């Protein structure tokens, strides 16, 4: 269960210049739900995602995930929380293009110092699920956009996170690949993952497996 209680977020540029990104946000997301955060650029969607991922803290208010007060976690514990609970899918994939598919996917597992056998098992599970096993030794820069997207999803899933966060995941994809991505979301939902997607792509607004579409306008929920 994810809860945002009276959350405000203000970015301070300097003493006389502040930007209010979120205004008194109250939100509840249940385990296994697929939530779409809808809104124009600069509306505060990505700020909510960064709070849920413990990448930043609110200016006031509280973020609670599974009864853990995320907004009160010290940085080292926030990193641990992210490592164990969160899978990220970024708009521009954020893959390391000089590394192979396998190396990119295994990156989130490096801090855990797992045995080679366990790493291999985790890798095989995700590359088979997302149909990229035949590309595992190829450098990421030699892949197509759609394939890179699948590598990014595989990387987000390799640590078996409870929560998957996607920030404008289809912004760089054509209609066919965007539709493929929606199918991937459906698969992930079947695995009882909590999924939060920030987007303004209309393709997500009519999906029958989406639990909630939340409109954000100028930092407020509408």
């Amino acid at each position, binding site marked *: 269960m994810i809860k945002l*209680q*009276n959350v405000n977020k203000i970015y301070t540029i300097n003493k006389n210049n502040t930007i209010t990104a979120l205004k008194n946000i109250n939100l509840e997301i249940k385990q296994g739900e697929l939530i779409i955060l809808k809104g124009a650029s600069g509306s505060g969607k990505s700020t909510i995602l960064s709070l849920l991922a413990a990448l930043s*803290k*609110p*200016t*006031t*208010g*509280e973020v609670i995930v599974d009864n853990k007060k995320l*907004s*009160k*976690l*010290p*940085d*080292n*514990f926030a990193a641990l929380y992210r490592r164990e609970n969160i899978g990220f899918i970024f708009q521009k994939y954020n893959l390391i293009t000089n590394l192979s598919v396998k190396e990119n996917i295994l990156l989130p597992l490096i801090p855990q110092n797992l045995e080679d056998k366990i790493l291999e098992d985790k890798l095989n599970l995700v590359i088979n699920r997302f149909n990229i096993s035949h590309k595992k030794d190829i450098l990421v820069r030699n892949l197509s956009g759609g394939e890179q997207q699948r590598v990014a999803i595989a990387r987000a899933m390799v640590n078996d996170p409870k929560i998957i966060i996607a920030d404008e995941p289809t912004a760089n994809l054509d209609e066919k690949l965007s539709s493929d991505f929606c199918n991937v979301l459906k698969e992930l939902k079947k695995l009882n993952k909590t999924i939060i997607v920030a987007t303004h792509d209309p393709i997500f607004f009519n999906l029958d497996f989406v639990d909630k579409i939340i409109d954000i306008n100028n930092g407020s929920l509408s």
Partner: protein
Amino acid sequence: MILNTEVLTIFILNILFLFFASIAFYLSIKIYLKWDINSTTTTQYTLEKQSVLTATIIKYIFALKLPLFLFFIFTLDNLSNLITGAMCAAGVVDATPYGTYLFILKILNIYIFGFWLVLHNLDTKDETLKYTKIKFGLFIFIFLFLLAEIILESIMFNAIDISKMVSCCGVIYSSTSTSLISYIFTLSNTTIILIFYGNFILLYIFYILKKQYLFSLFNLFFLIVSIISLIAFFGTYIYELPTHHCPFCYLQRDYYYVGYFIYILLFTGTFNGLLVGFLNTNNKNYFKSSLLFNTLFVLLVSFYPIFYYMKNGVWL
């Protein structure tokens, strides 16, 4: 005033420490007074961010101050070449009325800074930050000790007059000394050895019985007893000279810098021992580290009389 490279280095570092410690002091007061971990206000979130910065400043000051104690001794040793009559650091310490107090304060600060670092380490391992308020409250108090050390150090170096003749360590550490040190020589060697090894055996007994407070208390006694034993008994075997009792000369090259090993082992061992009581813990690591370093210290200092006896067939 004396201003060689080493003293200048100490002065520059002290200015830097004072500057950063003053910032940390101001922020520590703010954090200590306003900290409320359950609050979700802007003030609390700001304090949480500032606490990370402040703790980092303090951590680096203390982490640098610990090895700088050895540099301080090294500096005093070097200065002894410039001061008439001084043969080692002891002469420099005795050259002004402030030297002895500064030396005692520096040793005390090593332990206090060490305790703060351990407390900070525990705090960073706790996601509820339960030691944060305590550690910053403690720093407000420690800052005064740091300030006192810096001021006293500056006064001492300023007061050194190289044209003035000082006593050498042979005079300072003798039964004819006018200071408290002369009382050490009223004890017989047998008494000192019995107290030294007896105290050491008690540390093992309290470890086995898991009596953490007694273990800590006897580590404190062991620190004092060890320094007395070094002056009165073991030092003479390191120098192979029954009249030479200086606790500084074996820090010099002539004795292969063995003094540094002796003091590092003693301070590390007793520090870990004191931690057991300070943290009220039965954590085996602290017990074991304390016993390991104290045992190595005892083995090292015991080696000298045994080796001397084996070589010469007599005790000093």
